[in-house]
């Protein structure tokens, strides 16, 4: 079995969000970058567990990005995986990124492709579905559980007010979220081993791009909290009814 996990690099959850160049670029100076939490905790760890259960499985990681992404790719390799592929491009267009991943996937015939639920910077939730369409494979989005028997996968997927259990044959694309696996911390052996695992750099193939960021904005600052004395709960309810008009 061959598994591909798509990993991306995002600003740390606590990073200060600011923009430069006339609000067209994210202010990267002083920002700590991490492996996108959904890709790490859920997609990658679940894939590592599958490989632990079936040591003959081959696990590849892929990232579309510049060389500044190498540290997070090494971090992912320290958790697990046999090799990583980086397609050298700084595009932020979902279709372009998905096309690059689909191209690599076509050449390697993966049985299973995992993505995270979304990147925590652009919040697209799009790349998994796009890869699936480019490869004409079924796509299960927002999976919370995944198990495999032979070549049949059983996947729990979140729906409004509950979940659904699906049965699908491989090959398959799955976007992963909470529930898939538990967070792990790389151990010393993993960190040492990651240094010698292959990280292949490929040049991008021709692909279109459909969208472009034209500018960013910050939300208007909140006016500040209006504090109501603890012994006047009726006043809070009155304000919610008459001023905020939400109840």
């Amino acid at each position, binding site marked *: 079995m061959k598994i591909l996990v798509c990993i991306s690099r995002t600003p740390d959850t606590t990073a200060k969000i600011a923009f430069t160049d006339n609000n067209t670029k994210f202010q990267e100076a002083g920002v700590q970058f991490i492996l996108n939490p959904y890709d790490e905790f859920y997609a990658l760890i679940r894939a590592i567990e599958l490989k632990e259960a079936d040591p003959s499985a081959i696990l590849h990681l892929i990232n579309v990005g510049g060389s500044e992404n190498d540290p997070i790719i090494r971090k992912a390799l320290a958790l697990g995986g046999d090799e990583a592929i980086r397609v050298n491009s700084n595009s932020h267009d*979902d279709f372009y990124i998905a096309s690059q991943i689909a191209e690599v996937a076509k050449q390697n015939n993966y049985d299973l492709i995992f993505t995270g639920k979304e990147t925590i910077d652009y919040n697209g939730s*799009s790349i998994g579905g796009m890869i699936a369409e480019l490869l004409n494979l079924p796509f299960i989005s927002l999976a919370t559980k995944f198990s495999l028997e032979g070549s049949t996968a059983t996947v729990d997927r979140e729906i409004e007010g509950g979940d659904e259990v699906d049965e699908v044959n491989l090959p398959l694309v799955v976007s992963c979220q909470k529930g898939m696996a538990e967070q792990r911390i790389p151990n010393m052996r993993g960190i040492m081993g990651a240094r010698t695992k292959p990280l292949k750099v490929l040049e991008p193939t021709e692909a279109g791009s459909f969208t472009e960021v034209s500018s960013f904005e910050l939300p208007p600052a909140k006016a500040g909290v209006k504090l109501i004395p603890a012994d006047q709960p009726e006043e809070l309810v009155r304000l919610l009814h008459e001023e905020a008009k939400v109840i």
Partner: protein
Amino acid sequence: MSVLIFLDQADGNIKKNSFEAASYGAKIAENLNTSAEGIVLGTVKDDLTALGKYGLKKVYNVKEESLNNFDDQVFTQVIAEAAKKADSKVIVFSNNFNGKSIAPRLSVRLKAGLVSGATALPETSNGFKVKKSVFSGKAFANISIKTEIKIISLNSNAYKILEGEGLAEIEELSVEIPASKVKIKEVNKVSGEIPLSDAELVVSGGRGLKGPENWNLVTDLAKALGAATSCSRPVSDSDWRPHHEHVGQTGLTIAPNLYFAIGISGAIQHLAGVNRSKTIVVINKDPEAPFFKAADYGIVGDAFEVVPKITEAVKKLKGIS
């Protein structure tokens, strides 16, 4: 040309998010001087002509029982056919679970640029720019779509449902339906509860409530308000509440009109899931709790004393005794 809106249904009922999408799509059609049309897959109980009140001129319905089961490949195929037939240049989805599955596929199929998580009407005077939420609600990006056909998926509660007059014309479409590769084995739904993902009012509890035995504080207030309930991550991690109630960076992202946070400190990862809420109320005994910085209204006090009084006041307002 037309603007096509995908109207999502479950158990024969059109979802509330779809009325928002219809109102939003109808406004885009008006701005582009064209007509808004909806598409419904499967068999629904609702009277589809009534969708005219959201501004839809026509509703395509593919009345196949098999389409009552969601399948992203099948749905993409059917919507792509309808979009070609209707010559749709803008296609609108709700950015809900099903929308997140099909919109990206359709984007590839139709070579149409997708903006997911839209929070406002597109700017069409110069190009086609859509504002969307980025950095987990901490900022917005204006994304320009460069392709001829554009796909937008709209965040829930981002656009108000507009109701007017009018009846939609119904056109039954017969489309060849491919075989599904996905077998749905089980559907588990919590019945009788307001689904959190599209709730307008939400009451949420954190570790400050000390244990699951105290959750009636949250559920009583929610019941009085007609609100859904949610919780912080440690609460669902400790199994005080079910996992689907967990909101935040690693849980569900919500944007209700009212988010009532009780005994939640307001860690940045929690805020990431709720900071797009229109009005935030915080009840916390610690005046230094970071949540107050993100709140519109707050009470510094002990939840065990304050919340039952708020519940009473809400009941009084609503005339519930």
